[in-house]
């Protein structure tokens, strides 16, 4: 039991970060993490030690987040990527560097599924296999979401048309 709790404890900062990046609200994020930890502890018997505990926790957190989101939104709010209104912003003054505020704004505009995937892989450092498992999608789907997320981010941060940089000389 204490090993289990130790492992959970070690995962808490990353869970908080993921929840915060998704919700952009510290209290809401911590509420989700608390729910997630309670569920994990109550359902300890359902955890298969063959799967990484962290991925299991992320999956539970994500389900709670989606549920929460659903109850906050009216139905019909999911817009497929192709129809998503993307407003290109102006290119940053210094090409090649991304302003954090710009990226922060762009993340808000990403489609939910793309944001969930991108944060898991890039920020939380999950392997493609674990991320696909957490999101309950095939790896191919995950990769196409990541590809679309990256393309959308480039448009949203105004770096899609930035001059091609020279590769390493």
């Amino acid at each position: 039991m204490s090993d289990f709790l130790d492992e959970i404890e070690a995962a808490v900062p990353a869970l908080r970060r993921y929840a915060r990046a998704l919700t952009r609200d510290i209290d809401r994020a911590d509420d989700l993490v608390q729910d997630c930890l309670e569920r994990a502890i109550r359902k300890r018997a359902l955890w298969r030690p063959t799967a990484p505990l962290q991925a299991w926790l992320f999956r539970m957190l994500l389900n709670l987040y989606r549920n929460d989101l659903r109850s906050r939104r009216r139905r019909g709010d999911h817009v497929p990527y192709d129809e998503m209104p993307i407003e290109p912003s102006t290119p940053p003054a210094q090409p090649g560097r991304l302003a954090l505020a710009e990226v922060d704004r762009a993340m808000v505009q990403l489609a939910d599924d793309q944001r969930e995937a991108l944060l898991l892989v890039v920020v939380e450092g999950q392997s493609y296999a674990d991320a696909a498992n957490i999101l309950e999608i095939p790896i191919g789907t995950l990769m196409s979401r990541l590809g679309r997320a990256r393309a959308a981010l480039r448009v949203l941060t105004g770096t899609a048309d930035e001059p091609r940089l020279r590769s390493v000389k």
Partner: protein
Amino acid sequence: MNAGEDKRPFEVTEATLLAYVDGQLSPGERAAVETWLLEHPDKAADVGAWQRQNAALSTLYAPILAEPVPPRLDPRRIAAGVSGARWDWTRVAAAAVVLLAIGSGAGWFMRTATWQEEPASERLIDGAVSAHALYVKETRHAVEVAADDKAHLVTWLSNRVGHPIGAPDLTAQGFQLVGGRLLPPPAETGMGPAAQLMYQDGASTRVTVFITTAADGDGKPYVKYQDHGLEAYYWANDQITCTVVGDLPEAQMQTVAKGVYQQLTWRPDPGGRS
């Protein structure tokens, strides 16, 4: 966009480049990609842009990791609270019949509002209750396939739901099968279609049974739910979920639900749990 038109042993595609940027490649693969990028400056520019995205995202969210964790997120504290609770799910096998009386409908909704318990079972119960309320009022169109064509009904629903569904015999409980229909899965459960079976007694009081294939091990084993005079009994095993809905007196409702439970929730593979 067609990377890798040259037939080299290590083919670099868009997916390879994404995996490179996301640190998913082995050292050997990384080296091969880096060599390849030297000859493909346009792709190297894409990779550079993605790497800047990664750097920006990591920087953006890094400070959260350094924050002190609030005490309410201490797993030991939570565990102490959980073990003091009235029930312990960890001891309940997936198909165990543990009656959990939620109490009033208001109680149920408060639970969902405060701790977002068990989304799959909630949604299934909602779906079952809505479908019940909609179709029990119908006289001529209560079912799609009537009980006089029971063999077809059972085959059809089993095929569409994806699991053998025998229509339980509730004669002993005083109910005859009226028939059944196929329903779309409750919204956003990601599940397959549902089957609804309808029964009625001599006074034309109806109960419905709502069946889907199993949720992903995330459901409550057994839940009783009441709302506006309707009672729903939900349970799940590793193969199906089943919700019985009706507005019978509680004792009678329990008898009916028990009859359905005994006939539907078989476990051909009892291994793996003890």
